[in-house]
């Protein structure tokens, strides 16, 4: 059962991710992206990370998507306004991307299944355990990331405000 769900979710994720790239209308791309995010959230649930799945849906499918749609609306991108890229560029990009994929698949194909280190226990993804790890072991990164957000905020204000003449 779990295995079938896994295959179904993976298929859905890859298919809709492809559609994000292929579809001409940017609004459609965004909608396919939402499907991708939900499929990935499903993967998190399969791996016993319920909290992560919930946050993923709230943040990505909720907030980030609204932001995307907002930007598309502001720029008034409807259909077929994407700048024309040269055929050679597309060709080269496909070849290099495909090569990277082949190399990675070829390299990782033979990885033994137990290579991934065993997860410690089934309840690893519950909020209680996550909080305990976050505020004990990972207290320093948690605090330091506030500097990251602070600098992003200062930057947004700086770029957004009017120059005083």
């Amino acid at each position, binding site marked *: 059962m779990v295995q079938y769900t896994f295959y179904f979710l993976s298929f859905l994720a890859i298919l809709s991710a492809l559609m994000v790239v292929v579809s001409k209308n940017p609004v459609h791309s965004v909608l396919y992206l939402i499907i991708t995010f939900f499929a990935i959230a499903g993967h998190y649930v399969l791996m016993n990370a319920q909290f992560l799945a919930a946050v993923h849906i709230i943040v990505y499918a909720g907030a980030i998507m609204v932001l995307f749609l907002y930007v598309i609306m502001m720029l008034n991108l409807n259909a077929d306004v994407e700048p024309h890229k040269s055929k050679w560029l597309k060709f080269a990009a496909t070849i290099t991307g495909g090569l990277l994929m082949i190399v990675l698949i070829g390299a990782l194909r033979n990885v033994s299944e137990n290579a991934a280190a065993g997860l410690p226990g089934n309840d690893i993804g519950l909020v209680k355990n996550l909080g305990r790890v976050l505020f004990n072991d990972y207290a320093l990164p948690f605090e330091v990331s506030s500097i990251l957000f602070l600098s992003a905020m200062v*930057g947004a204000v700086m770029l957004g405000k009017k*120059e005083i003449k």
Partner: protein
Amino acid sequence: MNTLIILSAVGVLALFSEMLNFKKALGAIILLGLVGAFAADVMAWNTNRHYYNEMMVVDNFSVAFTGLLIVITFLWFIMSPDFFREPSSRIDHFALIIFALIGGQLMTSYNNMLMLFLGIEILSIPMFILAGSNKSDLKSNEAALKYFLMAAFATGFLLFGMALIYGATGSFQIQNITQFIKSQQGNIPVMLVAGILMMLVGLAFKVSAAPFHFWTPDVYTGSPTVITAFMSTVVKTAAFAGFFRLFSMCFESSSATWANTIWALSALTIIIGNVTAVYQTSFKRMLAYSSISHAGYMLMAILALNQYAQGSILFYATAYSISSITAFAVLLLVSHLAGNDSIESFNGLAKKNPLLAFATVLAMLSLAGIPPLAGFFAKYYIFTAALQQHYTGLVIIAVMGSLIGVYYYFRIIIALFKSENDDVVIPVNNTFKVFLVVTSVAALLLGIMPQLVAGIL
């Protein structure tokens, strides 16, 4: 750790300066804060303490590189204030630069992949913003957007690599990964190799090594010159500290899997950086390509990884940063008057402003690696370290690259002594004069007594 706290406090204090009305004193406060941070950093010498569940380790390597980053930032603050005319944008700029410095400090002292990632991001995000801080200039906007998109892509590779490494080893902790690699006894799982190579791509982007260098010329040229000066010194040094720390502490025992890749990266970077620099007509763009080529030389230390490698990469970063910041400082003054940053605008500087010309000559000679300046011994140490590991072919390529380098650095020096008709003397204030004298003397002093820096690691 105290350094981190002091720097964070200074950064937050800078943001409050407008509200609490001490804008005028801000420059002095920041300089004092940097001195304090430097003192705290030096006090941690030889203590080798581990913080917060092994998240951060303050060992001598991190103390030395953090000290270097703070010193360059200090020099940057002495050089830059005149170029932010508006006091309000000064505050933002200064706070962001301090935050970027914090990111750089984390990159020198991380002991967990997560801290490395946070350090890279804290260093990069202020840089994206500062690259675009000249809002009315289209080139500056382009630089910011290009830098942001490319760096986001490279960060994707870095994260993918970290995920694969976690999948193979089950840990983000540097020691655990090292132990895992050692316990495999040469039989390293493919997933780990893929992870290491992915991380290599992300880090090679950060240090602008070819073929991941395409963003560098445009971003360096488009950004305001003060910001470019910071990027090519502090950001580059921090990126190399993080790169070296990861590969020397964590992946050393698997070096057979990535040594060839770094060999090729280094050779490509040296060739492409030096050859392309020859064709540039803009001084700023030439410095961008020269910074790419210097990344190639520093990669040789990561390849060598013997007992000389640490000292040599520290000395190289010091020599390069000091000469580079001098060159950018002169460019700031010259381009401010000339209105562009072409090499021609340096014509006749020797007659008009002997001090500026003198500092430029020393900086160029040091970057080219002419004895007895710091740049010569920097190259000498790095080449020696590589030769001891029998990378003779790479050293030959590097020496040829340096010879090409001599050609384009001397073009600047020749331009300085060309006769020019207009005699507009560039006004230089006293702080700036002191700055130029200090950096020039430092380049000379490090050339005469290289053991001062190279010997401490």
